[in-house]
């Protein structure tokens, strides 16, 4: 399915938001799609960043300098057509738990994309978001999150008096074993957080993961 690019918005030197026309596309927050430029025969998976009710589609993309797809998508101008396949994936919230459960979303880098989609789609969600980034400049649209619910962990410089990874934050925090934990980001973060959660008494049945690669 072809979708036109509406805009490309830079978040940081390495990250941008690609906005596409909605074109009737339906998805469940947390699902991903394959994006590529027509005729290239190459595409990559990206989680949806925008909410289910939004009039457009957005994807939070990290530009891989030697990458095949992400630099081309960043260079796209309004009106450029993009191939989109999907949606798919099961990294979604159980509809029966959305209004009566607590969630903890733990992300590294652009792994915050599905959680942005969750909170904009389900404003009533009882959740905490723990976002690990390297530099403060990598924060993404923090005004879209309730500041009481968002914890930003910056590993390479202090932010608001604190510096460290999501694992450092989790070690200092008492874990709620009844919450549902969603982890999205690079594999190393997921390995480490998974172990911390299990050591903290969180059942494996309450942990959901989506590894970026």
């Amino acid at each position: 399915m072809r979708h036109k690019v509406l805009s490309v918005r830079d978040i940081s030197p390495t990250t941008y938001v690609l906005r596409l026309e909605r074109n009737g596309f339906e998805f469940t927050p947390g699902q991903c799609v394959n994006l590529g430029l027509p005729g290239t025969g190459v595409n990559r998976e990206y989680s949806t960043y925008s909410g289910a009710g939004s009039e457009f589609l957005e994807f939070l993309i990290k530009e891989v300098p030697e990458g095949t797809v992400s630099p081309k998508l960043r260079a796209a101008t309004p009106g450029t057509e993009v191939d989109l396949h999907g949606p798919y994936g099961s990294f979604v919230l159980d509809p029966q738990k959305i209004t009566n459960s607590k969630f903890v979303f733990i992300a590294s880098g652009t792994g915050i994309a599905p959680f942005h989609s969750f909170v904009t789609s389900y404003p009533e969600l009882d959740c905490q978001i723990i976002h690990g980034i390297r530099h403060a400049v990598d924060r993404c649209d923090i005004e879209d999150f309730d500041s009481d619910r968002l914890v930003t962990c910056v590993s390479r410089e202090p932010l608001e008096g604190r510096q460290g990874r999501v694992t450092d934050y989790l070690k200092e925090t008492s874990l709620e074993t009844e919450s549902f934990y969603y982890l999205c980001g690079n594999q190393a973060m997921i390995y480490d957080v998974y172990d911390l959660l299990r050591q903290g008494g969180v059942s494996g049945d309450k942990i959901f993961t989506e590894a970026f690669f």
Partner: protein
Amino acid sequence: MKIAISYPPIVNDQGQKAMVSQNRNVQFFKKPTYLLPVVHGQAASWLKNLGYDVLWDDGNAQLKDFDQWFRDLVAWRPDMVVFESTTPVMKFYWKLVDQLKSACPNCIVVMTGYHSMRRPEETLDRCQADIILRSNHIDFVLRKLVPYIDEHSNWRDHCPIEGLVIRRDEKDYLDTGNFKQIEPLDLSPDVDRDLVRWKDYAYENGNYLQVPGTYATSVIRDCMFGKCTFCRYNGPDLTFSMRSVEKSLDEYQRLVEDYGVREIFDDSGVWYRGAEARQFAKGIIDRGLHKKDCYFGFNTRFGYMDEETVALLAKANFRFLLIGMEASDEETLARLNKGYSLEDVEANLKLFTKYGLFPHLTIMVGYYWQTRKQLQQTVDTVKRLMFEGVARTLQVTLCTPLDFTPYHQECSEEGVLLTDDYDDFDMSKLIVKTPIPHDEYYAAIRDIYGVAFHPKFVGRQVQFLSRMRKSDWQFLFTYGTRAVRRVNQHVFNLTRHEGSPA
């Protein structure tokens, strides 16, 4: 402890042997194809490294008949036997487990495989198995489980290891919860080639352009994409993990230089792509392994390989690429969550063959929605791709709902499954209701495989193979003969139910 990782020879009433095949499902073949079970091989290697006495006991690859295999296993007096099973041979395994428990009452029987991991209680109810692994990460689970059992006599009551269902008593099972989904793959060792008797698997495998070949320790566990609805590597409880490029390169170097391997195939659901693929190809070149008369191959997806990567792979002596095309109509590709269009398929195939790679297409027919028009479109497209020379070889299978995959669940929900007899899930016949008679799908298979004997295709093939860097006519003849033999076998297997009532 003495641990056997065992694959019994299973022969059906037509004298065909059960072989692990596409998607780790079992298919019956007269002529053998021996696929090294890589993850179980890693498990065996890991246990051996921990100091346990491990028997690699593949009765099929070791050319034993059932009685001999069973006698030898019992005589070895194992403390634990690990089996791997999928739906079409579950009933066989349930009987076998009871037979083994009669002969070796104290032996702990562990069941692994995609069927029992999804329905552990069923297997515990139907046979005397002791432990069911709910994980497909057999190596990671066994390296924790075996030492625990070794050190704790009360392991049935208090096992803290996740991902197991343990028999405590006849009807009392201990479920240790969800298994750990992700572990760093680099922790699991390379397959110990001597332990698994690698040469048993080095010759009879259709994925090898030359022999002896072997399977690499997979660089990806499960699948990087993991969304195709019919595939095992799909589900909320599965995810992927990746091995480091350097560790894999070290293994390739050992296989080529110490074992004299001439073809290495990586059977990961989907191999590296992008930066890792390029880094791997550069590593092969930097180590000079591309000049050692060894071809390399892997499974990939359409949409994953760009021109720079393909060119590097070709330079590094990669040849055989196995790619699931599945169908050629957009509706089916979308329903299967393939994530690409026919346009991408054609662009990728042209790129692969431009650089001399050898794309092998896998196609399925008999989806429960597949119309005559869609079927014909697939047949026509595949034939055209083969005649144009952008695909080199192919394999057609009947789409069978495998062990509780999303497609299987969808078939159940849609009420299109025609049988619940596990024996019928051996991919030899269609077991779903379809919009056109089943015979039309069988005829399509015959039609597609007919390409192999068409003069236009044969001419293209000779032209292509003679351009390969190694212009070896003996190789060409050997590969051609093997290919024809396999085509005949596939046509027989997949069309023998033609004319049977649906």
